[in-house]
């Protein structure tokens, strides 16, 4: 975008900027990325995207017209500029009143439709924000007696079926935002808010906390994995199984070290430990990231995180366990990595 603007050469500032604006608009179409409102993968984001395009085009045309008029006003001889108060009445009053009334009617139709996504037959998922991670629960799912399906820092949802995120916060205000799927909604202590999502395109979308929530607000992301309905059901079913016993002694040693070091006081691993203060680790090996988007997941990264979480994400509640030694770290991380 910026490269194109440089090529426009020595024209007036107004024309130059209009050119940049047009270039920017053109480049909007090619705005990929897993966290972009410009590549919608769901109903809400798509409707807002359409609204955005209307706003951008309307805004650009209005801007260009006003700037052209201003440029003419500056350059034209006094006698050549037609009208006086008419511009004020027409451009300043009539035009905005008509255009904005139409926009109001249109945008409110959208707002109403988007608020209606969800409803009684939607899949309900409870998300509670903590400083600085996401606790995710599927009420009614999960093996009987497990207390429901719980995960963290990732939300797996089916494509084509309405999902209602029931969101709240455990400490300070956060805001859940998955730009490619929907707009954001705040998560406020003492309040329960709802966000309806209808994902249409399977894939992995990135979400992030949008309300400043203290030291590590920057490192509070999560993935939304949109699966085709059958694969989603398979995923759910896999979550309903009990974890198998570690396959080899090294993994068993990892589990034992996990328990010995007291990790289970904060972290739940279904059937192994039942801590509730930190993220659930029952299927840690299946997740894309560690520490709510702080690091890409992998056995080495896991060991590094456990050794020095305070370096990777300073101020988070997880202590650095470096002193326990490489052997224990490797074993724990190998075991966690095996929890797919």
């Amino acid at each position: 975008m910026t490269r194109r603007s440089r090529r426009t050469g020595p024209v007036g500032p107004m024309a130059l900027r209009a050119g940049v604006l047009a270039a920017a608009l053109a480049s909007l179409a090619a705005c990929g990325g897993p966290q972009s409102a410009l590549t919608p993968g769901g109903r809400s984001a798509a409707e807002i995207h359409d609204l955005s395009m209307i706003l951008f085009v309307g805004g650009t045309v209005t801007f260009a017209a006003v700037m052209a008029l201003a440029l003419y006003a500056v350059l034209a001889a006094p006698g050549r500029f037609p009208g006086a108060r008419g511009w004020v009445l027409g451009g300043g009053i009539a035009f905005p009143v008509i255009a904005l009334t139409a926009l109001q009617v249109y945008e409110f139709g959208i707002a109403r439709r988007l608020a209606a996504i969800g409803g009684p037959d939607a899949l309900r998922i409870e998300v509670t924000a903590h400083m600085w991670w996401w606790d995710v629960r599927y009420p009614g799912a999960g093996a009987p007696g497990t207390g429901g399906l719980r995960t963290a820092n990732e939300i797996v949802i089916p494509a084509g079926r309405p999902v209602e995120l029931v969101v709240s916060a455990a400490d300070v205000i956060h805001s859940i935002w998955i730009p490619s799927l929907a707009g954001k909604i705040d998560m406020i202590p003492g309040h329960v808010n709802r966000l309806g999502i209808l994902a249409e395109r399977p894939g992995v979308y990135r979400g992030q906390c949008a309300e400043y929530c203290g030291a590590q607000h920057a490192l509070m992301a999560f993935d939304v994995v949109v699966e085709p309905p059958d694969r989603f059901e398979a995923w759910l079913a896999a979550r309903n199984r009990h974890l198998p016993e570690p396959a080899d002694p090294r993994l068993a040693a990892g589990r034992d070290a996990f328990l010995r070091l007291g990790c289970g006081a904060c972290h739940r691993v279904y059937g192994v430990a039942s801590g509730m203060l930190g993220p659930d680790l029952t299927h840690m090996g299946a997740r894309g990231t560690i520490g709510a988007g702080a690091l890409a997941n992998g056995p080495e990264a896991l060991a590094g995180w456990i050794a020095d979480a305070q370096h990777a994400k300073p101020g988070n509640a997880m202590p650095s366990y470096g002193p326990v030694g490489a052997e224990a770290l490797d074993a724990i991380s190998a075991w966690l990595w095996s929890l797919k």
Partner: protein
Amino acid sequence: MTRPQPGSPLPSPLPRPAEELETLRRVWRPPGGLAIVTAVNNNIIGLFYIGTALLFFVMAGLLALAMRAQLAVPGNDLLDHGTYNQFFTVHGTGMMFLFAVPMVEAIGVFLLPAMLAARDLPFPRLSAFAFWAYFFGGIAFFCSLLFDAAPDGGWFMYPPLTGARFSPGINADFWLLGIGFIEISAIAGAIEIVVGILRTRPPGMSLDKLPVYGWAMLVMAGMIIFAFPAVIVATLLLEVERVFAWPFFQAELGGDPLLWQHLFWFFGHPEVYIIFLPAAGLVSMMVPTIAQHPLIGHRLIVLALVGTGFFSFGLWVHHMFATGIPSLSLSFFSAASMAVAVPAGIQVFSWIATLGRGRVRMSVPALFVLGFLFIFVLGGLTGVMVAAVPFDWQAHDSYFVVAHLHYVLIGGMVFPMFAAIYYWWPMVNGRLLSKRLGTAAFWLMFGGFNLAFFPMHLTGLRGMPRRVYTYPPDLGWDWLNLASTVGAFVFAAGVLAVLADIARSVLGHGERASPNPWRAGTLEWLPNEYFATRSIPRVSSLYPLWDAPDLPRQVEAGGHFLPGAPTRRRETIVTSPVEARPQYLMPMPGPHWGPFLAGLFTAAHFLMLTVQLYTLSIVPGVLAIAMVFWWLWELDKGEDFPPQDIGGGIRVPVYVQGPRSHSWWAMAVLLLVDGTAFACLLFTYLFLWTVSPDVWPAGPAALPAIWRLAAGLALWAAAAGAMAWASRALAQDRHWRMRLGMLLGLVLAGAAMATDVTAQVSTGLRGSDSAYGATVSMLLAYQSFHLAVTVLMAGYTLARSAAGRLAARRRVTFDNTMLFWQYTCAQGTAMLLVLHLFPRLTG
């Protein structure tokens, strides 16, 4: 005032006696050397004020550069998270509270008297105090960065993050106490500006001839009066919650974090227009000069300014579209947010039409004005976008909003400010700033600005949230951020060029300006010295200098009103608020150490509170109050001179009292502020009741007995009656009866307060129990504070009485005390009715 006929005689016959000018110069001479800090004249305080605001602009700007450097590349570790979070908090807070609002008030303090051809603003020592409190407070606020103690909760300070649990350090207190009291200085400035515009206009400048800038400042000051109390109350509640654990914002005890957001944005959105309207007013003054054509649509612009002020109080929820508020409310606030585009459109098209009908003379101010138009229109259009609720659900708290707000604030306020600096600089030292440096600065700032902020629209839509100290690569944000960083530094280079230009001029370089270098039409371009114009012109049009080309010569020769200093002291003409008919000659106070010391001690008091030296803080607190009484003591002189001839056959008194007095007006405005703050507390009470009715008393059994209400009401009424009796006694010069009435009234008011407090305590109520306990305790505390102020004011009034400085014909001090007193009694009554009857009605 009738239009002067051609050839009609001037108000003061020429030539004037020579000693007139000498007397004027003598009485208005500013103090020299170090004693310059005792100066109170608006020319000097205004420049101090502007200079300090510019200094804070540069400091907050440097923080922005550091942040941009951190964000230049993904995963950067130039700034750690703690430093970054402090930097963005201090950047936002500093720009909004220590730069933008003070700067628009500072420009007003400097320019308004000149535009109104008044010798000064009506309360020079109040201006000086407001400035010094701001100066010391602002310096202390920025210094908190050096001790790693700067606030880090964002300029919006949302609890619970900023509450005692998640922000245990004193960082948040620096914001709450530091900014809290600097807001008081903004209110002082607003009172000054309202009374100045309404009462010190030159004879003949009826409201329809008030320059647009005057209207803009009047609306802006009115907005401060109704908006700032909300943030002061919010600040107070949060600080009290932090110190005494009264749970206003804690959900588990019936409080609500959203209460803060309502109060903060009820202030925060008008704040944007408090910053923008004065700048728009400046543009409306410069555009006619640039085009050499009267402003087209003057009346529509005035309507637009008033309309903006009005609308701006109905927009605050658009900062809360994502909080889960029901969509019916959202539609109301969305519509109101878009409606505000109409007054903005009126102004933009008026400026364009004026430029079109006139012949534009290119200059540095013209460049900045055109740059403003470009940036502001773009920012306004993105404003319409974020007013659309679904779009805002995506854009909110993303870099799109960072782009939008910088387009409207830098475009809407900073560019006009630089235009104004280049335009009005000749009033500072009689020189023009450099056209070459100014042009270069403009292009650096304009290009740098757009390079920095235009890409952010896209960064935001690509999903980058605000207030992140780092970001991962490969999300499509890298190049956009790098461009923004480069742009920010280019913009900074432009600011540096302006500062260099100013330094060059201050050091005595640069072209000397003629008295009216841009051939403007308004009064500030009359020849003037530090006492303002030699004589105060009779005004009969919107552009007096264009319509009466001989006016500057007449004014300078002393041919108009008040050509000298008839009582041989500083004075200016007070006129009626609508027609601007001369009413009286106001004596004006001169240099004094009081305002400087009071400002210093006030800042010291709040600084000590911040670092929790609670007991020690009493010392500067008491000293600050003593300084105020010291500077007040010699004022309110009474009718010490017979009525004076000010020219045009008009003879006016040198003293008035009652509702015509400027002092009475200021007190009335202050009570509007006060009443708004009280209304915010009542809102708090009702809002928390709607959130948590379960923590409110269930029925009369849990409430104080009804006789306690009756007793309280009777005592407040009796206290008010005693003061009315004292007032009648003073009117008859029966001094002992007046003193007796006041003392009796104080006893009754004290008894009323004690009754109110014991009534609530009798139910076992505690502030820390629940949101109910907290709000009731807060209302009682607020009323007690009013009683304390009443006691101070009454004590001062009694002291003046004892010193023989109070009489039936010298009672402005008494009247001010009485206004505050009666207000306090009325507020106590309202509070009692709510506290006792509301839970009975709903329980």
